[in-house]
């Protein structure tokens, strides 16, 4: 139940949601993200468990976990519509984020076309079960990849001034790369990889200790980094 907070980690813990929440007119709009993250995922698990139990009740030999057939045999076309709409609404902000990311690489490209092409590629990819059936593991992996950066963003925005340090330090000092953030990210990933590989911890659970490791590292490394790199502009 607690780890429902870590579902779709790339979006929430990894702060990808900020790409959409930048349009929020009030800070409490983020509650929508929190509700989707915890309540939504928690209920989704319950619903998935009930659907799976029903499938086993109908045919004990059918142990496949396929969202479409699971929903269809329990709720008919309504179930299929739910799966399609759930996939569509989840994919919308993600395609938008992917469009923004590609546009960051090619700044002169039209966001409209780049988002459309990204969505097209994702749709074609989604037609191949060999890829989509590995989504769960992939989602866990890219959630893990983004988690340390989410911790860095959180600490940089909310906590770092309390330690006598400055936030957005790369921007203030005119540096193109914040080594404290970069090192916190890489070291956390290495530790997380070690925990999964050698300590037998599941990839879904490694992000909880990982978040605190990244946050602590970022603060510790910032103490050193901010002493060495002097600001190019005066503090605002």
């Amino acid at each position: 139940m607690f780890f429902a907070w870590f579902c779709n980690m790339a979006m929430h813990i990894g702060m990808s949601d900020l790409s959409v929440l930048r349009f929020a007119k009030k800070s409490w709009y983020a509650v929508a993200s929190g509700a989707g993250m915890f309540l939504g995922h928690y209920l989704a698990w319950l619903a998935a468990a009930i659907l799976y139990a029903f499938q086993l009740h109908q045919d004990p030999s059918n142990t496949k976990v396929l969202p479409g057939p699971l929903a269809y045999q329990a709720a008919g076309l309504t179930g299929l519509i739910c799966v399609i709409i759930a996939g569509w609404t989840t994919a919308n902000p993600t395609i938008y984020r992917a469009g923004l990311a590609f546009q960051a690489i090619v700044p002169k490209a039209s966001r409209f076309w780049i988002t459309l092409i990204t969505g097209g590629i994702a749709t074609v990819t989604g037609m191949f079960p060999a890829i989509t059936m590995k989504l769960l593991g992939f989602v866990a992996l890219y959630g893990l990849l983004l988690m340390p950066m989410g911790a860095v963003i959180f600490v940089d925005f909310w906590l770092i001034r309390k330690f006598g340090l400055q936030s957005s330090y790369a921007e203030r000092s005119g540096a193109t790369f914040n080594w404290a953030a970069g090192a916190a990210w890489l070291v956390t990933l290495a530790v997380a990889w070690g925990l999964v590989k050698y300590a037998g911890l599941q990839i879904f659970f490694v992000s909880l200790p990982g978040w605190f490791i990244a946050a602590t590292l970022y603060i510790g490394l910032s103490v050193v980094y901010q002493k060495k790199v002097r600001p190019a502009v005066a503090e605002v």
Partner: protein
Amino acid sequence: MRTILIIVAVLSLVALMLPSILFLAGRMELDTAKWIMLLATVVWFAAGTPWLWKQTG
């Protein structure tokens, strides 16, 4: 008009949930439940969309 849309939309949500509860209680066949849920889904989108749609920009 808006009041009618709200009433129809809320009733469609009730009609969407009720068949599954009746099926669980053994009071309804699965096929009947599926058809009622499909009908309720269509009604929800027909009534709920104009109710909740908000023109922006």
